[in-house]
């Protein structure tokens, strides 16, 4: 009991997990191909996005570092060119075309804290043309906190273009108050470079991504091909084209193929065992039945009559149930193919000899390549009973023709020139098995066995009038594909 309840709980918890897993990676039981492609593509896209982001940010950072170095140099130059005077700061001329030409994009300025939290400009590069480098409100505070170090920021330049600005607070010899040195440089070139690099990088990664996904598609198709081959082979086994899986498969699925073969063998063994049991039981029961029948047969009276009648019933019951068990076991058998012409030939030769007194002539036609998808013994059972029945009822002629009907089916037509069967009795004959042929010697169960076996194979049986004058039995059975 404990084991059962534990197992149930396990199943219950496992299910929702499987479902959410399935939502992301294709439901198990859906396509393995899709699942593999989906998973690989997801991983590729994630990896490429990460790579793209790392590349572009690295590029931008190094560009900014380069700008920072240039700004540091400018500041150093300005510091060297600066000297304190009693009135303020004197900056010697710096011979740099860029800082001389107005609004060139490269600027410097020297300032001092004005004591109200702002900066007062003491000198600036000619390129600024009287404009001022914009200063964030918190800059003077940060500069005095990090005295001597460089602080960089982005600000709007004199002509509305973005600037990279660096500022540093230093002391000049001969001057008590600290001086702020600033340098600015136009960063729009760097920004457009970075944008170009990003565009290029993302395009390249997109192409790479598409290429990789295509490669995955191809790889999955090729990688899973043995599985498709295996599927085809198993379906061939089912259709009766081959008996076992013969193909050599890759290491990973060869065990599966071998297990399928072992299963087929086991299936065959089970059927074989079942048949032996069935045969033994029949043998064990029928000899005593024969004894009872013979014993009663010698005497007249009510008791012997009853024994005779009941023995017949018992025989019928034994036959009926044993055949049913056999039919059920048999229909599961896969991969069997039986040549119809061979069975027809042996049946015709045998039954003509059995009915030699009556000079029965069995004319059978079947293409050599016609195969029944099922066991030889079953086809013998079906055709043996049908043809024996026809031989019992015919005057002299029995005609049999068999052929494929397409769609994996075949038809066997058995006709005789006997009295035939009125239409209203045909239903009954098929429903209850052929009780009505009890007047003819032999088993009265021929037709019921045929019906049971035919149904076990998913076939169909129809009765009609034959142009020979007697009964025409149409039998539809599964055909083995050539």
């Amino acid at each position, binding site marked *: 009991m404990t084991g059962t309840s534990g197992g149930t709980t396990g199943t219950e918890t496992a299910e929702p997990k499987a479902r959410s897993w399935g939502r992301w990676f294709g439901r198990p039981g859906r396509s393995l191909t899709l699942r593999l492609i989906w998973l690989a593509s997801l991983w590729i896209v994630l990896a490429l996005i990460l790579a793209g982001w790392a590349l572009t940010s690295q590029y931008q950072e190094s560009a900014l570092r380069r700008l920072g170095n240039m700004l540091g140099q400018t500041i150093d130059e300005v510091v060297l060119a600066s000297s304190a005077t009693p009135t303020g700061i004197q900056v010697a001329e710096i011979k740099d075309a860029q800082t001389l030409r107005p609004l060139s994009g490269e600027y410097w300025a020297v300032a001092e804290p004005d004591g109200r939290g702002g900066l007062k400009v003491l000198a600036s590069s000619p390129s600024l043309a009287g404009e001022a480098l914009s200063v964030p409100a918190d800059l003077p505070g940060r500069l005095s906190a990090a005295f001597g170090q460089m602080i960089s920021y982005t600000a709007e330049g004199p002509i509305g273009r973005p600037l990279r600005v660096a500022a540093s607070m230093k002391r000049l010899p001969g001057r008590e108050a600290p001086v702020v040195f600033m340098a600015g440089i136009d960063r729009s070139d760097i920004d457009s470079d970075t944008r170009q690099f990003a565009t290029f990088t993302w395009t390249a990664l997109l192409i790479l991504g598409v290429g990789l996904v295509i490669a995955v598609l191809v790889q999955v198709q090729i990688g899973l091909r043995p599985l498709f081959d295996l599927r085809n082979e198993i379906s061939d086994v089912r259709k009766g084209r081959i008996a076992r899986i013969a193909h050599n498969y890759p290491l990973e699925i060869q065990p599966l193929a071998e297990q399928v073969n072992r299963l087929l063998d086991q299936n065959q063994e089970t059927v074989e065992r079942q048949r032996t049991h069935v045969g033994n039981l029949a043998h064990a029961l029928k*000899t005593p039945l024969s004894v009872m029948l013979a014993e009663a047969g010698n005497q007249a009276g009510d008791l012997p009559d009853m024994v005779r009648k009941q023995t017949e019933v018992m025989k019928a019951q034994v036959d009926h149930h044993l055949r049913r068990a056999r039919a059920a076991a048999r229909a599961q058998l896969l991969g069997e193919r039986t040549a119809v012409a061979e069975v027809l030939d*042996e049946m015709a030769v045998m039954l003509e000899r059995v009915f030699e007194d009556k000079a029965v002539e069995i004319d059978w036609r079947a293409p050599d390549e016609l195969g029944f998808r099922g066991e030889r013994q079953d086809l*013998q059972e079906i055709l043996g009973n049908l043809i024996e029945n026809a031989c019992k009822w015919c005057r002299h002629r029995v005609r049999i023709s068999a052929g494929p009907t397409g769609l994996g089916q075949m038809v066997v037509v058995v006709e005789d020139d006997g009295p035939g069967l009125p239409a209203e009795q045909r239903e009954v004959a098929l429903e209850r098995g052929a009780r009505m042929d009890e007047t003819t010697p032999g088993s009265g169960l021929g037709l019921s066995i045929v019906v049971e076996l035919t149904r076990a194979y998913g076939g169909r049986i129809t009765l009609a009038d034959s142009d020979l004058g007697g009964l025409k039995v149409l039998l539809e059975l599964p055909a083995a594909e050539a």
Partner: protein
Amino acid sequence: MRVLLVEDDVDLSRQLKTALGDAGYAVDHAADGEEAHFLGDTEPYDCVVLDLGLPKIDGVSVLERWRRDGKTTPVLILTARGAWSDKVSGFDAGADDYLTKPFHTEELLARLRALLRRSAGIASATLSCGGLRLDPRAARATVNGEPLRLTSLEYRLLHYLMMHQGRVISRTELVEHLYDQDFDRDSNTIEVFVGRLRKKIGSDRIETVRGLGYRLTPLPGESTEG
């Protein structure tokens, strides 16, 4: 008439022995395959009733041995399993009729009478062509001593060809002699039966003469007297 009854069940053999005795047969009884084989091999029986499920040696093997030794005694087999595959293997071994257990004693007696009647007529007015032999009265044919399993239409075709061996026989002529009635009279029919017959007797024995018909000839090296 001497009958050999081979059956291992004590009660059934007692009953059958009585019934056969009452019907006027002299009955010997064997309870296992070894004894049956010995008796059948040494005594000249007119008929054998053979159960297939026997101790020591099974019925089919016993029958095969008799036939291999050239015994032609008619044999009726009793099967308990009732499966057609058993009946077929019994016939392949050389049985002449079968009866499925349980059966009425009258049925057995009727079948025996029929068997004996059939075998009574056998004489040796045989036709031969090389290794082929055909006995018209028993309606049996052999190739190199092996019994041929022929349907009646195949037998009739072979019979006609053997009666006219060495001569070219047209398809029309064959069709006329194959069927009593006017059914199925097309020459394809003949091709089908010639094809089947070739499979059973060897394809070189029946020669196709283009546009004319067929001719039965002994194989090279075989003498017609055989």
